[in-house]
């Protein structure tokens, strides 16, 4: 199939860049480092006296909650502290130690690393179109017997495949190192989350898998966004800058507009899908997982339509 040759060309180009190997190696090294560090500094006294520790934490939390209510911080700050407080209480009552580290707990703790991967994916997606315009290589590619949309689609498919690849690497590395250092198993460890103001106890493996699945959807939308920016701008560094700014400033922006009624229709509050796994982390109210998935689908379609329409018509003067 000829289209697949286009995709494999893009794939080869991605993997011929030194930075790609850094993107692959860095998460693995970080996971390994954290696993080793955690194992070395494992505090057995805290582990055995966890009840004391948690009780102390709750005392602190209570003060913080009172303070948050007094000084007029946004409502969700107090709410999330309260949730933490309730979870701690529940843990004490049911005798579920939050200090028990298993491979799955380790995977959960490593989840924030996915935003680092998000950054890498933005770099690749931003460069894959804009970079070829900047270097002028795009014209060598567009004079081939392929309609423009096929060339662009091949780049999109290659970027998504690369995002998926990075994500698999992260999942595999966290599971492997977690298992090596904290033992295989631990899938049935209980995990506490808040749903509708009540504490729910579920399996940590269930939580981790759901978390990873949702994160990959976030990844995909990030790719669509960066890909659009990449197509609209001629310079890859400008494209990378804009995409990074949108992604990170977007989250800050959410705080500003969180009280507005239209906030839930904007992109960024919907970009954080894992918020639905733990209620109380929600900044903008009135959204649900199906709602957010729907909004993301609409935004993604919009991004792709703009990307392909612009690319199809553009005069290449590079």
């Amino acid at each position, binding site marked *: 199939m000829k289209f697949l040759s286009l995709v494999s060309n893009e794939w080869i180009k991605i993997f011929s860049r030194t930075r790609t190997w850094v993107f692959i190696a860095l998460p693995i090294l970080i996971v390994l480092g954290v696993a080793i560090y955690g194992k070395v500094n494992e505090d057995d006294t805290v582990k055995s006296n966890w009840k004391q520790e948690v009780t102390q934490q709750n005392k602190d939390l209570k003060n913080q909650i009172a303070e948050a209510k007094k000084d007029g911080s946004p409502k969700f700050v107090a709410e999330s502290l309260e949730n933490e407080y309730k979870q701690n209480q529940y843990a004490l009552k049911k005798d579920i130690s939050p200090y028990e580290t298993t491979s799955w707990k380790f995977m959960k703790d490593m989840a924030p690393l996915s935003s680092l991967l998000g950054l890498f994916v933005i770099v690749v997606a931003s460069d894959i179109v804009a970079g070829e315009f900047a270097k*002028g290589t795009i014209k060598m590619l567009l004079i081939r017997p392929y309609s423009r949309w096929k060339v662009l689609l091949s780049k999109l498919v290659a970027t998504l495949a690369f995002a998926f690849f990075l994500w698999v690497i992260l999942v595999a590395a966290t599971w492997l190192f977690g298992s090596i250092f904290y033992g295989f198993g631990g899938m049935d460890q209980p995990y506490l989350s808040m749903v509708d103001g009540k504490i729910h106890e579920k399996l940590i493996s269930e939580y981790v898998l759901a978390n990873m699945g949702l994160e990959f959807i976030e990844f995909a939308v990030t790719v669509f966004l960066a890909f659009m920016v990449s197509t609209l701008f001629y310079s890859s560094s400008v494209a990378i800058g804009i995409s990074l700014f949108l992604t990170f400033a977007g989250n800050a922006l959410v705080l500003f507009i969180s009280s507005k009624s239209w906030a839930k229709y904007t992109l960024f509050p919907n970009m954080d899908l894992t918020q639905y796994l733990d209620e109380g982390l929600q900044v903008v109210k009135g959204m649900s997982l199906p709602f957010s998935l729907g909004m993301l689908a609409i935004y993604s379609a919009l991004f792709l339509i703009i990307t392909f329409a612009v690319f199809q018509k553009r005069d290449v003067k590079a």
Partner: protein
Amino acid sequence: METVHTLELKEVTKKMKGENVVNHLSFGVRKGEIFGLLGPNGAGKTTTIRMIVGLISMSGGEILVNGLDIRKNYEKAMEQIGAIVENPQMYDYLTGYKNLMQYARIMPGVTRERIDEVVKLVELEQAIHKKVKTYSLGMRQRLGVAQALLHRPSLLILDEPTNGLDPQGMHDLRNYLRLLADQGTSIVVSSHILAEMELMCDRVAVIQNGKLIRIDNVTNVTDQAQARVHFLLQGSLNDAKSLLAEHFPEKTAEVSDKELIVEANTTQEIGDINKRLVEAGFLVYGIQLKKKTLEERFLEMTGKGGDLNEVSVAGQ
């Protein structure tokens, strides 16, 4: 049926910012012909080439490649074209070979043997497995030629192909293009360097301000007995001029410095003029035949204008 041109442009127009950068341009390139697009920088050569290979859209007109309308049969038409548009920009983080592989993978019928063959042809065997970022401009140019030839296109389009080539490289390229043309490949070459076009092309289209000024047969231009004969003589040049006007009323003679310049068509004419001058007592100590070059033709065709300053006569 009309013979199908390998490439045919009909009334091709490109508007940019309200101006016709390419203005109702029509020409046809025959099979096995080396066709030159000649004009100063900014005349619309590159814009025309970009329209042919689909990099920019046309505002009007039609482009046919072996009879296929590039707007209706884009992929089929592009299969038959190999091209370099301005500088061949390759992926400099890949080796030359891997660059060629990129294109080999997506073009029909390119085998590894074919890649080796083309690499040998452009004499890059030594460097082909080195990264392109280590290449000189000339090597990049040759790699560009290689990628354009890979799939044996029936139409080869080279925009300023001799950029960065040394004289030997230019010579080799010319010979190779001639070989390809003899095998039936049609070649379009653009340049603002006249001497180069004269050596390389069969026909030349002169373009200025997006318009076709004329299409000329290069061999005609050089062989046509439009020679200017310079008589170097002692004595009054003005007397010689009136002598000529008397005996050869159809000729116009010019006087410059120590020369009498006459346009003459045949050796007979030149001999006759010389005889007259000698018989009238002029000491003729030299006769020089200067053929009109493409450059002079070009100047004649395009008239005077600031643009002409951009036209180089020889290499850059």
